[in-house]
């Protein structure tokens, strides 16, 4: 049984149909990538899973349980965590407070250990520990958003464009980290513009176009498919 299942999900923003009967499955332990052009509906899909945007019809199941249109905190409790598009850090809290809020649902005694893990993965955050999150540089905020999501120790991690605004070295590190956490048993659903590197690190992928899944396959197949190459990889 798949860990996350989307059955015929549709989402509207008023009169705009952002998602049109989408079916997606993510097995436990997998890394799955969503690719698609601007406005394909990738972020909307992630927000819908988290209950931030209402699902108009269809069903979303996590671990076999129907979670369609439940409160966001319920998703977080069941172990789905999103590192959102546009960072969404708490600007007037320090880096450390932001990270601690990431572990809001977790027992107190486990927190120091997680904090250490995040600090070792993203040493820049440790360096900036007491700084207000709002005054961090763009890339630093992105790291914080990722680190904060990790603090929740998710069963399933949703990442919306994690590489946005990060320096090349850090991007490599983030993807290494993705490899590492999937080893620890975390399932990951990824949205990436940087399709080449994302596909290299994932098992399967869905291609979204104007709110519908137009293609799905194993990541390495897609990486070599001419169609995908033409649509998403530049000629350089």
């Amino acid at each position: 049984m798949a860990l996350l299942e989307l059955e015929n999900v549709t989402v509207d923003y008023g009169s705009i149909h952002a998602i049109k009967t989408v079916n997606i499955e993510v097995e436990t332990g997998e890394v799955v990538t969503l690719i698609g052009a601007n406005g394909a509906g990738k972020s909307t899909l992630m927000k819908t899973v988290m209950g931030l945007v209402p699902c108009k019809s269809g069903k979303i199941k996590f671990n076999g349980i129907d979670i369609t249109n439940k409160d966001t905190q319920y998703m977080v409790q069941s172990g789905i965590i999103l590192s959102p598009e546009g960072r969404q850090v708490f600007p007037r809290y320090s880096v450390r407070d932001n990270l601690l809020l990431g572990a809001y649902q977790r027992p107190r005694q486990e927190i120091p250990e997680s904090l250490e893990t995040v600090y070792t993965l993203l040493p820049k955050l440790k360096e900036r520990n007491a700084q207000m999150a709002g005054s961090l540089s763009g890339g630093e905020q992105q790291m914080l958003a990722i680190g904060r999501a990790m603090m929740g120790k998710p069963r399933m991690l949703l990442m919306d464009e994690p590489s946005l605004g990060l320096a090349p070295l850090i991007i490599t590190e983030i993807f290494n980290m993705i490899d590492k956490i999937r080893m620890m048993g975390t399932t990951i659903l990824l949205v990436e513009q940087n399709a080449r590197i994302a596909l290299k690190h994932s098992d399967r992928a869905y291609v979204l176009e104007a709110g519908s899944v137009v293609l799905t396959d194993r990541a390495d197949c897609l990486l070599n498919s001419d169609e995908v190459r033409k649509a998403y990889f530049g000629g350089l």
Partner: protein
Amino acid sequence: MSEILSVHDMTQCFGGLNALKGVSMHVDQGEIVGVIGPNGAGKTTLFNCITGMYRPTKGSVRMVGTDITGWRPYQITAYGFGRTFQNVRLFSRMSVLDNVIVGMHISTRLSFSQMIVVGKMRRTMDDAVHKAEEILKIFGLYENRYEMATSLPYGDQRKVEIARALALEPKLLLLDEPAAGMNEIETEELMNTVYALRERGNTILLIEHDMKFVMNICDRLYVLNDGALIAEGSPGEVRTNPVVIEAYLGKEA
């Protein structure tokens, strides 16, 4: 070649943190210059100091020979610098088209004697609409011109920002991570657009983490690390500079 921008000994401190440490640089007419460096190196801060958003602790900025240090942002913009923001800052309750029209604030200014000419104001605004539509066509957003700016997908919002900055018709266009949030194809399109702008005679200073983009498009690069300039030169020179590889690019690149 005439100098558009020159920065001298720019230093910016935030409390105990030295975000910029004596950076000097210049941009000449018709160039595309890149600023690269690790996260938190001070690139955005440099832009902020140039455009008057921050008041630098030390150092000076000159635009086409005029010292503009300490000017207010709107004065600097009026004088010839246009910029985009790293975190998209669109006017959220305005349509895409109106966002771009706001960018024409300076060029639509009328003197008092012009203002009293009947219909002059209206014609100026009509012209502005027309020009804005032309600019949106460049970015393939013409169809979306009446949509609310913030309901666009992230990647498109960035394009609107660039379009808006372009509408300023600046002497120097400062772009902060223009390609972020775009996939490779879109990045290539953007690259073509930037080329086209250069053809039109625009001068551009940009920050970007997408190395393909930077290496392909820039005439010269400045590399910042920890607030200090660690290298400068042509993309070829910078790419092979061991200090830059160590601090920023990593072995693979």
